[in-house]
């Protein structure tokens, strides 16, 4: 940037090196050095202001995000890391007792932690895989020329707009043991009442359906947007080659969507790792069922921190979750590099 010197130069310094430069940038009748006309002085000031403005404004506009991120993202992250190395009780959160890696090594032997990790993983798979497959299929259908396509596109997004709490409470009633609608429907075809919340598979299935219901539409729209960016000639030429609709989907649509699919996989995985509201409200307690059968990592963190009052241990769980996400992020990066190369 050529303007740097100007900003640095004191404005009143007579005959400084800055002036000629200024004039050089603004060709025009040049009075003798040190004898600027009032208009010229005004113009110089205005241009200095303008330059300062273009230079600093972007930072200013960006700063709210970074300030808020520092206060509510970065600081808690670091503080949690610090707390995870201490014994901290919710009884007296300001009192910290150094514990080294104790909280982490304890987690290693904590069967409740491993159970929560396993639950998080199985619920994550059970919710993410069908969700993305269905989203892909729905996006494909919505990509056809349809009457009222706008209506359908908005309709698939409506579950996403509902609150977790409202959706989960409704689902919890649907899955009710004695008076739930799902058991009632099953009963009409001769299947006995299922105690959805008490089974391991059934409860995880139920929680997964809530996630699927809420997020399928969102992913559908992302896929749809990506599909509409695929050039039509590809389809035309493949049609000329005699490709069926299905072959077009497999050989044209899917490869073109690869980066988008990867993105949705990552976003869904992050979401699945942090799953919290659905199992909490579905079960009604922080334990995720009597046998902790659908307690996710998020719920276990909540239980340890806010019910058992072990903030240090809860922080260690939080950091472990963070590290898991970092690993997932790295895998994503490796895969996407592969993809780029192969293209």
């Amino acid at each position, binding site marked *: 940037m050529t303007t740097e010197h100007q900003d640095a130069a004191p404005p009143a310094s007579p005959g400084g090196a800055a002036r000629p430069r200024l004039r050089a940038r603004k060709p025009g009748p040049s009075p003798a050095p040190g004898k600027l006309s009032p208009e010229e002085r005004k113009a110089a000031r205005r241009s200095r202001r303008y330059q300062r403005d273009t230079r600093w404004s972007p930072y200013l506009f960006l700063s709210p995000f970074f300030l808020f991120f520092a206060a509510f993202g970065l600081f808690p992250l670091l503080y949690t890391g610090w707390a995870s190395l201490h014994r901290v009780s919710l009884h007296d*959160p300001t009192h910290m007792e150094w514990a080294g890696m104790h909280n982490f090594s304890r987690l290693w032997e904590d069967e409740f932690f491993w159970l929560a990790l396993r639950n998080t993983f199985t619920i994550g798979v059970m919710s993410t895989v069908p969700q993305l497959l269905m989203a892909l299929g729905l996006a494909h259908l919505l990509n056809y020329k349809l009457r009222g396509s706008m209506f359908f596109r908005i309709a698939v997004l409506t579950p996403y707009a509902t609150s977790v709490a409202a959706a989960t409470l409704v689902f919890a009633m649907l899955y009710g043991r*004695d008076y739930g609608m799902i058991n009632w429907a099953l009963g009409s075809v001769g299947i006995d009442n299922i105690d959805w919340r*008490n089974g391991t598979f059934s409860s995880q299935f139920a929680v997964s359906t809530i996630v699927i219901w809420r997020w399928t539409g969102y992913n559908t729209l992302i896929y749809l947007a990506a599909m509409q960016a695929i050039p039509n000639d590809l389809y035309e030429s493949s049609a000329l080659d005699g490709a069926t609709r299905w072959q077009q989907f497999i050989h044209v649509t899917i490869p073109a969507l690869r980066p988008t699919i990867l993105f949705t996989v990552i976003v869904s995985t992050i979401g699945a790792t942090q799953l919290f509201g659905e199992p909490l409200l579905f079960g009604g*307690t922080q334990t995720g069922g009597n046998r902790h059968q659908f307690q996710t990592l998020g719920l276990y963190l909540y239980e340890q921190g806010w019910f058992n009052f072990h903030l240090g241990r809860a922080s260690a769980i939080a950091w472990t979750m963070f590290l898991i996400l970092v690993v997932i992020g790295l895998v994503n990066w490796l895969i996407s590099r592969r993809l780029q190369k192969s293209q």
Partner: protein
Amino acid sequence: MHLSRTRSSSFRLAALGISAALSAGLLAGCSSDSDSSGGDGEKVTVSVGVFGVFGYKQAGLYDEYEKLNPHVTIKESSTERNEDYYPALLNRLSANSGVQDIQAIEVANINELATIQADKFVDLGKASGVEKEDYLPWKWNQATAEGGKVIGLGTDIGPMAICYRKDLFKEAGLPTDRKEVSELWAGDWSKYVDAGETYMKKAPKGTNYMDSAAGLYNGAINSYAKKNYDKNGDVIFKESASVKESWDLAMRAAEGGMTSKLLQFDTGWNQAYANGDFATVACPPWMLGHIKENAGEKSADQWDVAAAPKPGNWGGSFLSVPEAAKNKDEAVKLATWLTAPQQQAKLFQKQASFPSSQTAFDLPEVKDATHEYFGDAPIGTIFSDAAKDIPISILGPKDQLINEKIAEGIRQVENGSSPDDGWNAAVKSIDNALDS
């Protein structure tokens, strides 16, 4: 007073809390400011921090106090759930700032605060106007720290009775008159389970004797003086005789199939009331409104209240004044007034919060109270008789946590685990939670 006592329960009633908060806001909007300046001393605003609905505002007690003391304005702020309220309170206590002048404390937390944070509170036992004799001795004892400091004055209590359905009892061949029902199991919780066995032999189709085995455990364990802790403050629930006896009773109920396997305060529990799926439930006074609301008009004249086999307490709260409060003196005066017998009786009349003041038991508001929905049962005397016989028990800071985990183990057995597996799971869970 608070719509819900246990952690899961307050959760379930969040919606109620919101509407209550909204209506409280409306009421506050209606109340007119008293502008008389004839008070003694400067004008002060006393802040009161509560969780859920305490009902002082709704019962008009704040207005009355402000009229009596024109220089005082009362400002209440309520947090819906105690799970959010209590950690915030701990945080502010340890920071010595941000506390309200009066802070409400749930009975589940009072012992913990008396054990570890007693020096953060004003000794209300010595406040002028506070008569120890007014309060039930066991309630007074709950808020007493080592060395005799009293960190909170009792508000309401939850002496348990048994609510039962007369129509179902009749069909099953059990007595229906509340005196006879009380005598059926008087003195021993195992007789209550015996009656359950009789009931199940001729149980009306689709019904069970009780809502949950965990509810039975809760009733039984709370009638003992020594539960999860010994006198030295050590956790002894694994060897505790009362825990073992109560656990065995719950096992008898669970394995005998006499429970509806419900989670209390869950949607399914509420629906079961509406459909009349179970015949009995251990009920403190604060649950009566809940039963009426959920069982509805359809079951009017079916429910009644009998004495519990042995009296125990479930729920209740305290008012405390932190040392860091801005208006300590005024706060102490207000807390004393709000928990005095006369005000407790008024609160019972208007908000159904049962008094912890035994002096209030003799006031007509309490003594003559009946409940229309429960066949005009004399709830005033039923519950005050129970309250007087509740033992002074040894409490510990983690009583609630231990009880909840044991309840979890009981529910496992209800749903098919063996009693040993259920017990081991509970022990493991408790050890994990208590391990520091």
